[in-house]
């Protein structure tokens, strides 16, 4: 039985990791970055006879929310301009194509749990902001602060440093030198800088847990959870909770999950692209490469990764 073979994979930050496609036994759990606690948790659930791939996905990502993985998932990380931590998350069921997601979720720690509740207890796919928090409380989640001493300190230091870096542009006072409040400079639309290096986007900023799970019956689920980008503008939602951007799953084809600079990635829909490419016959690592290529062409210094798997369990990644 496939369950006897433990397979879990993680991507390390520091080197490019392209795996040759090779089939593995099922079930399969694969997630981004070195979040092995999450992988282990999901693995233990998927091998529990009574639980589904979705149960395992939510349990695995929840583990990262609790552990504040790399400070980029869960409470206490990535405070926005006014110091609040807000969360984005999604789940997608490859069998039904059902999606549940939350963006700009406030005051609730278990973002992926709430995303699942959106999918299972509403006929919507995305609920955001304060209303998402109200919904979560209705569904039995606890309302509690996501702010910690660490996130308070981060905001204080950022303000002392003239609010650098930030995500403002074409406004006055000069956002490269000064905090707000800002006013727009009318009719000014500079070409977007092709480098986001000044934003310190990387493993400890702007990252996400993205997870794909295939069960013994080749059913695939995908999910993500993140606290977004440090000092983001309040209300900012990144790629993570957007179907096709943060993650995508389709039975009989495969799934993909992305992580990295969401403000760039959500304009290219890499996860959707990768799954479409799998459908055209590309291998998982070819699909990952081709899906990220357009992004790299526009943004050579882009930071991010994509994991892709087909429903037979062949997987690949590109960073």
């Amino acid at each position, binding site marked *: 039985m496939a369950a006897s073979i433990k397979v879990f994979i993680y991507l390390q930050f520091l080197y490019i990791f392209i795996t040759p496609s090779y089939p593995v036994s099922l079930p399969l759990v694969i997630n981004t970055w070195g979040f092995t606690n999450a992988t282990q948790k999901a693995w233990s659930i998927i091998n529990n006879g009574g639980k589904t791939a979705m149960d395992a996905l939510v349990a695995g990502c929840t583990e990262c929310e609790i552990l504040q993985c790399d400070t980029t998932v869960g409470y206490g990380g990535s405070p926005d301009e006014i110091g609040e931590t807000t969360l984005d998350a999604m789940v997608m069921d490859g069998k039904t194509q059902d999606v549940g997601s939350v963006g700009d979720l406030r005051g609730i720690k278990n973002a992926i749990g709430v995303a699942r509740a959106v999918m299972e207890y509403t006929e919507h796919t*995305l609920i955001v902001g304060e*209303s*998402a928090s109200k919904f979560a409380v209705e569904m039995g989640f606890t309302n509690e602060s996501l702010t910690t001493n660490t996130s308070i300190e981060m905001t204080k230091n950022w303000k002392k440093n003239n609010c650098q870096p930030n995500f403002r542009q074409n406004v006055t006072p000069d956002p490269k030198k000064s905090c707000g409040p800002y006013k*727009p400079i009318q009719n000014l639309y500079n070409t977007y800088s092709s480098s986001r290096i000044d934003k310190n986007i990387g493993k400890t900023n702007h990252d996400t847990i993205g997870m794909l799970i295939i069960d013994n019956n080749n059913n695939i689920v995908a999910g993500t959870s993140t606290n977004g980008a440090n000092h*983001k503008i309040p*209300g900012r*939602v990144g790629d993570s909770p957007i179907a*096709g951007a943060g993650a995508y799953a389709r039975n009989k084809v495969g799934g993909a999950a992305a992580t990295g600079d969401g403000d760039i990635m959500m*304009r290219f*829909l890499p996860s959707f692209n990768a799954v479409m490419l799998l459908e055209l016959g590309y291998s998982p690592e070819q699909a990952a490469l081709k899906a990220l290529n357009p992004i790299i062409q526009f943004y050579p210094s882009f930071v991010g990764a994509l994991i892709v798997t087909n429903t037979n369990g062949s997987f690949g990644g590109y960073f």
Partner: protein
Amino acid sequence: MIKPVIMVHGGAWSIPDNMVDANKEGVKAAVLAGYKILCMGGSAIDAVEAAIVALEDNPCFDAGNGSVLTADGKVEMDSMIMDGSNLRAGSVGCVNSIANPIKLSRMVMEKTDHVLLVGEGANKFAGEMGVPHVSIDSLISDYAKEEWERFSKSEYRSAVNTMFKKRDVKEELVNSGHDTVGAVAVDAQGNVACGTSTGGITAKRPGRVGDTPLVGCGGYADNATGGVSTTGHGEGIIKVCLAKHITFLMDQGLTAQEASVKAVENMYKRVGSSGGVIVVSKDGDIGQYFTTDRMARAWVKDDQVYYGVDIHDITSCSVDGLNHKIV
């Protein structure tokens, strides 16, 4: 240099007979507002914005003024705009108290490094950017209120089933809700743009965001392929990433029209949702398809304006002949 083309839609849904004329006039006026800009050498993105502003300001359509209401009787609007030349995009979800969400979306694109702002954060951003605050009442049309009263009794699913019922499914056609507006254009420089704006679906849950502001779902624009704007059952559109699916198919060699049909039919087959799309290719070819009863749309190509709501019944006349002579 190519001949600019612009197309708009006022929503794919079961438009009742007594609203057909207003819908036709509305989309015609909007497409001409956008075309005027293109004729003066303006950009696709300026043209898309102008067309959508016209639709948002028209209470006949579910966007801006005329937005449908949430379950608790309030207005929450979503919108997106995308520039195919550099794949920049800006979008807002769940904003209220502004007249033109499409303008705020453009500010997200031009004044921030983000793509999507939602809720309170988006409303605050509007204030910072000097967008005038308007009363919520000024955005609520009588029709939106009536519809809310009708559907809040039977809830969201009923609104969806009635408005977005598939065209060949025989059901009694009741007066039912509105839908999204959108525009796509290609300018003389070959730059493509798209935009979409909506008040959502009647009786939606507060905080619910549909496909409209999600890049790849409510719209997509890429100079390499073309521009798309979608309308219909938002949850279904999200599940299949409808707009991106269309540009993906065009990249595989399908025409704008072939891609429109394939993607919209696929959405119904896979997830049971109905809707419609408008597409303009980078070369100025038009694509349009919908599986709902009707879709209000208009386009201008080669100095002819075309408009209609039914699948086959399109009126056309020359732009000059309308006394909207473009100088």
